[in-house]
Structures are given as C-alpha cells and as structure tokens.
C-alpha cells in the first residue's frame, strides 16, 4: 500500500513538474532560436568561395537532459505494445536543439558569421533500473567562421 502511494506521488509530481519544465524549455528554445537565426549552422564541409577570408575555430555545445518519472512509466507501457515513444522523442528533440543553441551562442560570442560541418552526437548517460534510459547527453560541434 505504501509502495503504491509513493508510486502515485512520484507519478503525479513527474507529470506536473515534468510538463511544466518541458513547456518552459520549449518556449526558451523557440525564443533563442529566433534570436540566433542570424548564424546559420550548416552541415556541409565546403566553404563557399566568396573571397571573404575567415578565421576558424572549433565550437561545441552540450547538454544533459533527464526524462521525468511519469514519462518513463508511459514509455515502459509503450514498450509492451510497441509504436512511437513520443515521450523520448521530445526529450531528444529538446536536447539536440539546446545543444545546437549553445554551440551557436559560443560562435556568436566569438563574432562568427556561420558554423560549418555540424556534427551531433548522442549518448545515454544515466542508466536506471533494468537499463532504462534516464538521461541523454547531446553534443553539437562545428567550425565557426569568423570574418577577418
């Protein structure tokens, strides 16, 4: 009985706080994406030959984000029936966008015009019970081009 109560409390607080945190995070991501739109992040290696000379520098951005308890339980249930695990989809989406934003922020502070050859790397950091993924790390890195 006590176990059940603890479980329900965890579920409810995960649902409440998790939803709030996710909404807040998405709002902040969208606002900063608009602001940093001026620095395009490009996935190609070739720099356009415009004659402009650039200094280049490696920029990185990383973030570790954890899923909340409610979503983990939902994802566990989803494992039984199969299909899209949307609770993990939003987690990874948030982490990727946040990592790219941090990378762009660093590029901006160095006065860069654009970031080339973007690479993204994802790894699960914290494994919970029965190897359930608790949190993911996303690293975004690329070469910032700073006009000379």
């Amino acid at each position: 009985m006590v176990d059940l109560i603890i479980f329900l409390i965890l579920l409810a607080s995960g649902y409440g706080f998790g939803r709030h945190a996710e909404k807040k995070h998405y709002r902040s991501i969208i606002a900063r994406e608009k602001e940093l739109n001026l620095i395009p992040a490009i996935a190609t290696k070739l720099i356009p030959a415009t004659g402009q000379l650039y200094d280049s520098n490696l920029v990185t951005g990383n973030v570790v984000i954890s899923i909340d308890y409610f979503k983990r339980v939902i994802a566990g249930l989803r494992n039984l029936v199969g299909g899209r695990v949307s609770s993990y989809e939003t987690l990874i989406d948030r982490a990727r966008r946040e990592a790219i934003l941090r990378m762009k922020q660093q590029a901006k502070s160095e006065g860069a015009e654009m970031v080339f050859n973007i690479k993204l790397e994802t790894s699960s950091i914290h494994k919970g019970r029965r190897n359930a993924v608790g949190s993911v790390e996303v690293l975004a890195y690329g070469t910032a081009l700073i006009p000379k």
Partner: protein
Amino acid sequence: MMITNLEMVPGKQITKHLGLVQGSSVRAKHVGRDIMASLKNIFGGELKGYTELLQDSREEAVNRMIEQARAVGANAVLNVRFSTSSIAAGAAELFAYGTAVVMD
C-alpha cells in the same frame, strides 16, 4: 594551435601530414551529483552538474590531444571528432581525435 573539424582551412596550405593525434579522459561524478541526478530523474529537466562535468572532461581530452599534436610538431589539428562511451556504471570516457598537420 588551430583546432577545426573541417578537412582543410580556407586560404592555407597543408605542408606536412603528421598522422592521427588523440586525447581521452575518463570521469566519474561524485555522489552528491548522483543524488541530485536521481531527483531530477523524477522531475525531469537539465542535469547541470553532468553537463558541466562532461564539458570539463571534453576540454581535458582536447587539451591532451593538443599536447600530443604539439609534441609531434604540428601547428593545427584538422577534422576533429568527438566520441563518448560509458565504460562502467557511473563513469564515461570522452575521446577526441583528429589529424595533426603543419600549415603555412
């Protein structure tokens, strides 16, 4: 020392190839952060302690790679890649590698 993940640097010529250089760092987090992390696992959200830890150890890996490049006499490292692997519960390896070259 120039570090870039492009395969060439615009406006510069590679005069000498010095081969692969690498740096790695294995870190574990301390218990306090683990407790904070398990709380965050209930509520969700960013694990700032881990973010910082991984960033620091990645910097360390890059510094080791730079040291190695300097030892072989390079002045730039091109095509840098990062990789992460969890080798034991609670410890992660951060690895950086690239090609050491001499540029004019």
